[in-house]
């Protein structure tokens, strides 16, 4: 598909020599000057010129003469469209800027003007550069003769302009455009445009009444014209109607807010609405001269332009919603109906936000739409704006909105998790409304198991959204369950994958999926077995609250063994650590003592209970390690409260080999926080039992035997263990001799054969120094306690600034004691 030829063309265009380029410019210029009847040769040259100026990211400057000629070509109303397109593209891509010289006098031809406008729009550096074009467009709108329609492309250009800067239009101009938009929206002809071939040999064109527009299902149009009306040909005002509806949302978003209109007029409008809700409609339907009668209908004429536009846009959207119930004959129209529903509901939403009196008129229609859409998941995306409408206005209208949110949060994620567009829109809907959902929609927080299905399936594409969303899903009562759910996210991905496959493929086709087919087939078999049913149902549960986790998690992991290499599962496993960081950073802000205790239990338990994906455990344990320290720092008595679990974990040597990082951190927090200064309940017995546990482990891993295998842990683990031991000993002086004895043995261990092979010289040196220093410290128990168990406030700045308390200051004193006056030391 992408051919080497294309690549070499780009290369040629980029590397063209200056001399050759100038020659080429000259040739194009000559062709432009000479050809009255410009032909294929010129087209070819212009196409090449465009490639040359656009292929590089550095701008090329055209000779002024050539630039002028191209501008002339762009302005000339008689030249074919291809020349307009090409000259416009070349001028857009090259220098010198031509926007200013193009803005002097404008063409009346709609198409040429549009190509010219694209140059002006792309080169404008300041708002002022757009003004001449803007004024020209507005003048063309102002034309008093109703039969002369302004150029077709006026509205898109205008629309682009005001999205740049709403200040481009003055208040009067905004009113002018609003008035025009309202007319085009509401009063386009309902008759078909005259066909070019109308009036055959036998029928004179004059006698034929133009046919009425039809609806998308083929019925004759029952009301005013909208984009969902179908006819052979469209009149100019019908085209304008289409352009108007396409831009009306961004217009309302930009200029809807009340600037000038006063309270009286709003009041006036409201009474009219109550008295004659659809007067315009009726008068129009009864009349055969549609647009003129409606255009002069008094009721809406009284309204200020912005409010009148609001009224007309509202009626238009109302009609569109009704029209979208019709069964479209063409597939394209059925798609358009959906897009129209989305647009109509969001326009109504904007209008209601500006003027609450519309809420009462809108709700019957929105409710009916909801009723229609809610049964069919094919309309899921159209239901999101409806939900937004409920969220914004149901309180004003005292309408119950629970049903719609229950449906939204229960069915959509569970059944439509594999639709990336819906997933994106759904998650952004949540993000957009996060505070309201948190406050007012109870089902939102409970639904996190469901919402996470979007993430599990779509993986990295939604990670940044979920990082933002996650804190809002966290509540104290479900915090633990959320943590388990995050850890099980790859399992969820695997299960969704299985569910999807089992629905899509027949049993006999298993082996044709891909190379991994056979392995997956085993998992799929498990997925269908009743033994595992409960496990999978738990993983796929829609709501939180059925329990934090399940007992037989390892069984589930085994059942899903065949899926560990599935790309979706691997992608999912990669994003879990990121989410865990967000989780812990949030949870530590709201956690109380009880929750922190529970979290620590989960960390210890889950550090060895993870889905066996390559490097997943290591990454997760790294996150655990980091936040273990935070938890302990936040609530130091934790170590005493949870001593049973911690002691068991720390005394199990095999933990070193499966999760060294987490183990090291755990040992560190034990050494740091198992102290009377952090917890008054910390007893000597407790310190002794931890000491003995660690001592046993250290003893086991530092045995010097010829037959012993070289150490399978890092030197860091060793030093952390030694330090922890020394710290504990300093807090219970009976233990000091045992610690000292042990530390003195380290020297011979470090110099034993297998260790020297495994650790570098520097590492060995480091281990020996550490042992020696600790040993020296322990010889002065009071000093040891001071250094190894600093007061809890040691983190405070005062400890480091005040010379009387400053830790470095004291450390220096101690080290000089230890090093220079070693004779002070007891023998």
């Amino acid at each position: 598909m992408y051919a080497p030829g294309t690549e070499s063309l780009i290369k040629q265009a980029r590397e063209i020599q200056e001399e050759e380029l100038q020659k080429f410019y000259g040739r194009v210029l000559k062709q432009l000057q000479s050809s009255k009847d410009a032909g294929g040769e010129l087209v070819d040259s212009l196409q090449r010129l465009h490639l040359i100026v656009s292929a590089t990211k550095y701008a090329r400057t055209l000779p002024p003469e050539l630039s002028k000629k191209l501008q002339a070509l762009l302005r000339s109303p008689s030249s074919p469209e291809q020349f307009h397109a090409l000259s416009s593209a070349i001028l857009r891509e090259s220098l010198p800027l031509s926007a200013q010289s193009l803005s002097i006098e404008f063409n009346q031809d709609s198409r040429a003007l549009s190509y010219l406008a694209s140059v002006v729009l792309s080169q404008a550096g300041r708002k002022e550069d757009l003004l001449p074009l803007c004024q020209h467009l507005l003048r063309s709108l102002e034309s008093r003769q109703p039969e002369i329609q302004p150029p077709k492309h006026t509205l898109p250009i205008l629309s682009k302009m005001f999205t740049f800067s709403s200040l481009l239009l003055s208040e009067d101009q905004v009113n002018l455009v609003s008035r025009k938009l309202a007319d085009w929206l509401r009063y386009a002809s309902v008759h078909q445009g005259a066909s070019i071939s109308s009036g055959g040999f036998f029928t004179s064109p004059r006698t034929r009444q133009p046919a009425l527009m039809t609806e998308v299902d083929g019925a004759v149009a029952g009301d005013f014209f909208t984009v969902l009306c179908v006819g052979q040909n469209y009149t100019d005002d019908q085209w304008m109607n289409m352009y108007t509806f396409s831009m009306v949302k961004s217009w309302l978003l930009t200029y809807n807010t009340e600037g000038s209109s006063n309270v009286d007029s709003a009041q006036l409008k409201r009474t009219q609405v109550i008295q004659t809700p659809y007067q315009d409609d009726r008068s129009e339907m009864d009349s055969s001269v549609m647009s003129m009668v409606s255009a002069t209908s008094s009721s809406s004429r009284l309204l200020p332009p912005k409010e009148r536009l609001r009224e007309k846009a509202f009626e238009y959207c109302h009609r569109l919603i009704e029209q979208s119930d019709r069964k479209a004959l063409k597939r394209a129209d059925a798609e358009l109906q959906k897009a129209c529903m989305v647009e109509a509901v969001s326009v109504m939403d904007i209008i209601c936000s500006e003027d609450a009196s519309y809420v009462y008129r809108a709700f019957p229609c929105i409710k009916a739409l909801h009723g229609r859409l809610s049964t069919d998941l094919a309309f899921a995306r159209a239901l999101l704006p409806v939900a937004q409408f409920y969220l914004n206005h149901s309180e004003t209208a005292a309408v119950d909105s629970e049903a719609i949110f229950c449906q939204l949060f229960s069915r959509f994620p569970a059944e439509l998790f594999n639709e990336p567009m819906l997933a994106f829109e759904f998650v952004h809907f949540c993000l957009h409304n996060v505070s309201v959902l948190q406050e007012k929609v109870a089902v939102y927080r409970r639904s996190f198991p469901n919402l996470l299905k979007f993430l599990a399936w779509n993986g990295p594409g939604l990670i940044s959204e979920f990082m933002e969303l996650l804190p809002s899903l966290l509540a104290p009562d479900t915090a633990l369950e959320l943590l388990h759910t995050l850890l099980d996210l790859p399992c969820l991905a695997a299960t969704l994958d299985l569910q999807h496959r089992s629905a899509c493929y027949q049993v006999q086709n298993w082996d044709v999926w891909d190379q991994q087919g056979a392995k997956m087939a085993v998992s799929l078999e498990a997925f269908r077995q009743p033994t595992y049913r409960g496990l999978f149902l738990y993983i796929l549960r829609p709501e939180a609250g059925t329990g934090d986790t399940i007992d037989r998690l390892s069984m589930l992991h085994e059942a899903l063994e065949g899926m560990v290499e599935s790309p979706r599962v691997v992608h999912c496993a990669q994003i879990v650590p990121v989410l865990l960081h967000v989780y812990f950073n949030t949870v530590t802000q709201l956690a109380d003592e009880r929750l922190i205790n529970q979290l620590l239990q989960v960390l210890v338990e889950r550090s060895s209970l993870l889905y066996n994906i390559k490097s997943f455990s290591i990454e997760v344990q790294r996150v655990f390690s980091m936040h273990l320290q935070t938890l302990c720092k936040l609530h130091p008595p934790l170590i005493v409260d949870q001593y049973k679990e911690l002691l068991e974990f720390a005394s199990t040597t095999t933990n070193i080999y499966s999760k060294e990082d987490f183990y090291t951190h755990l040992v560190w927090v034990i050494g740091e926080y198992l102290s009377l200064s952090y917890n008054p309940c910390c007893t000597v017995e407790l310190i002794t039992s931890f000491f003995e546990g660690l001592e046993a482990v250290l003893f086991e891993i530092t045995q010097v035997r010829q037959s012993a295998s070289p150490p399978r842990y890092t030197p860091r683990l060793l030093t952390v263990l030694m330090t922890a031991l020394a710290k504990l000993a300093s807090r219970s002086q009976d233990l000091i001799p045992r610690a000292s004895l042990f530390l003195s043995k380290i020297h011979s261990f470090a110099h034993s054969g297998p260790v020297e092979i495994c650790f570098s010289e520097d590492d060995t040196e480091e281990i020996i120094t550490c042992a020696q220093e600790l040993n020296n410290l322990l010889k002065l128990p009071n000093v040891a306690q001071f250094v190894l168990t600093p007061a809890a406030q040691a983190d405070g700045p005062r400890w480091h600034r005040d010379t009387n308390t400053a830790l470095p200051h004291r450390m220096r004193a101690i080290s000089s004691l230890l090093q220079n006056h070693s004779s002070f030391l007891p023998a």
Partner: protein
Amino acid sequence: MVLCFLIHTVCPVGVLSAGESRILYSRIFGQEEPVLSGEGRELTPEQRRLAQKERHNVVARQVRSAVCLSREASGSVCAEAVLGEETVALGEADSGVLSLGPGEPFARQSVALWLGVQALAFTLVCQPYENLLLAEGTLHKLARYCLEELRLLGLGSEVLLKSDRVDALLQRLLPHGQLLFLNHRFAQNMDKELSSYMSK
């Protein structure tokens, strides 16, 4: 409003480093808002153009990686379609959307909608409040036209040399970045105009 439309590669290209994408067609609809409101006014036109091209490259790269991830996850192996099989190729196309945060690379938050057809991707970058259903339909239409009129499934280089066809296409289906609500009859009317343009 749509900010820009790109056609770019999602396959490895010889001279480019891995993960890079070659942009074959790019169209930006007007300047970005901050340029007009004064920010970045100190930039010269050359610098502004360069920044614009770099922004396109960022989008293309991100889309490329999204397409690859999505293809990898779904495990789909698409059969090579050849000229004339545009409908098949479109039927098998992957599509998706990604959110571009403020400054990444556009000043305001925006949304990139993509459609991956074999070795190429078609990308629309729009404002976040845009009607994505409509944008998706428009992108699909644009891709179909481009595949057919530029013979993208073939081995030629029409996409570079006949880019004015894309301009003419955008002029109608997406004038100045405005998404349009076109029913099948409006679309047919535009079809007629377009085919007379293309036949020249």
